[in-house]
């Protein structure tokens, strides 16, 4: 679902508000550039938004597919097990964002949240019967760096207290003690690795190949509840934390 169609979620790129005010200000004040060039006659324009950008994405932690929609919109976006995450959509900070999760056979569940300036919010549709339950996790990253990989661990499973990730084949812990309902983020060098899950310090039979992690890209690994024939009680998946254009 293109960002432009999510009008019900009050999508507005931070800074776009500046553009109409800028043109109007310049027109009213007669501050257009003169034809005879003069270094002193330069129009005033803002050098940034009144508040930082805010972002929201939607993630499906259920075993099957589901959809989400923006309030007032007729279209729905699918979140499948293969593509469980939407990109981050830009929203107006401090403004109510509304939508709905739709899972076949389950009552639809309303989404409602407010995102702070500089915040990246993730709304997760949780496994379970009845109306789709949700968890909202928030971060305000400070680690923007095009030369490093940014990787987060989001622990969505209350049964996996203090989640951790070890690098398979090395005695290195990538993450430790990430409480259920919380996340941690770190930077690393570009690398191709697989990880193994720990819950409460115990190595779990759940691994995930993260693939070749690229510099400048941001990723999230999610720990979600699962019922597996092999007996694993958690599932891992990785998302690319892209921003919708």
């Amino acid at each position: 679902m293109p960002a432009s169609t999510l009008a019900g979620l009050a999508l507005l790129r931070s800074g776009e508000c500046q553009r109409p005010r800028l043109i109007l200000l310049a027109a009213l004040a007669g501050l257009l550039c003169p034809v005879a060039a003069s270094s002193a006659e330069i129009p005033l324009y803002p050098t940034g938004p009144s508040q930082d950008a805010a972002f929201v994405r939607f993630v499906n932690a259920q075993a099957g597919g589901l959809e989400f929609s923006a309030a007032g919109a007729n279209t729905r976006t699918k979140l499948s097990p293969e593509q469980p995450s939407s990109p981050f959509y830009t929203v107006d900070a401090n403004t109510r964002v509304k939508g709905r999760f739709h899972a076949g056979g389950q009552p639809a569940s309303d989404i409602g949240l407010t995102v702070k300036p500089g915040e990246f919010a993730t709304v997760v549709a949780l496994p379970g019967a009845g109306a789709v339950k949700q968890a909202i996790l928030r971060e305000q990253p400070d680690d923007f760096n095009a030369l490093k990989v940014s990787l987060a661990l989001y622990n969505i499973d209350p049964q996996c207290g203090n989640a951790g990730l070890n690098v398979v084949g090395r005695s290195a812990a990538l993450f430790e003690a990430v409480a259920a309902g919380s996340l941690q983020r770190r930077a690393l060098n570009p690398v191709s690795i697989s990880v193994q899950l720990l819950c409460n310090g115990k190595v779990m039979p759940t691994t995930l190949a993260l693939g070749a992690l690229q510099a400048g890209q941001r990723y999230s690994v999610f720990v979600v509840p699962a019922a597996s024939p092999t007996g694993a009680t958690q599932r891992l998946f990785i998302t690319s934390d892209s921003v919708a254009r």
Partner: protein
Amino acid sequence: MPLLSTLIAGASVLVIGDSHLSKPDYLIKSLHDELSRQGALVHSLSACGAVPSDWLGSVKMVCGAERIGNGPVTLVLQNASTRPVKPLIAADKAKLVVVVMGDTIANYKKEFAKAWAWQQVTSLSKEIVSSGATCIWVGPPWGSEGGQYGKTYARVQQLSNFLAANVAPCIYIDSLKLGQPGGWITVDGQHLNPAGYQAWGSAIAKAIAELPAPNKP
């Protein structure tokens, strides 16, 4: 090691930026002339007040300017706008794109909007690099403190550090290392006088020429 100057000679170079290229005695003269002297076929295009993501589309601005090759500077007033950079690169067959931007995302009078600035910078750098062209990003100069834009040395340093960490795969040229705080006189704290633009433009062109040529097939 081959230098970028070997790439520039005879190559098409696209320069895009903000108001620092928008008047005849600004970088659209000095930088454009210096790159031309290095043998490049230069196309410079500016839009006053534009932020990086504005160059992914066509966004109206209050003023702008354009110059092609050895031609004169054309000032654009009411119909000034950015143009989508990828079709520009394709039309010019540009091997090198030089972006001169930073002051318009510094938020001088307010708190630095980090997430917004990250989104701005990465959207443009990814767009340029996806075209296959080599990308160079030039950060803003010191300017002088105060003035109508509220520029401060601390903020422009913070912004430059941010750009240095976030413009890759574009190569970053730190204009703060090319001059001194207050060294180039400004008319409003942000825009330089003609001598300042001449000095800045020459320094940028020299820095570009001395970069290592990228390893490309």
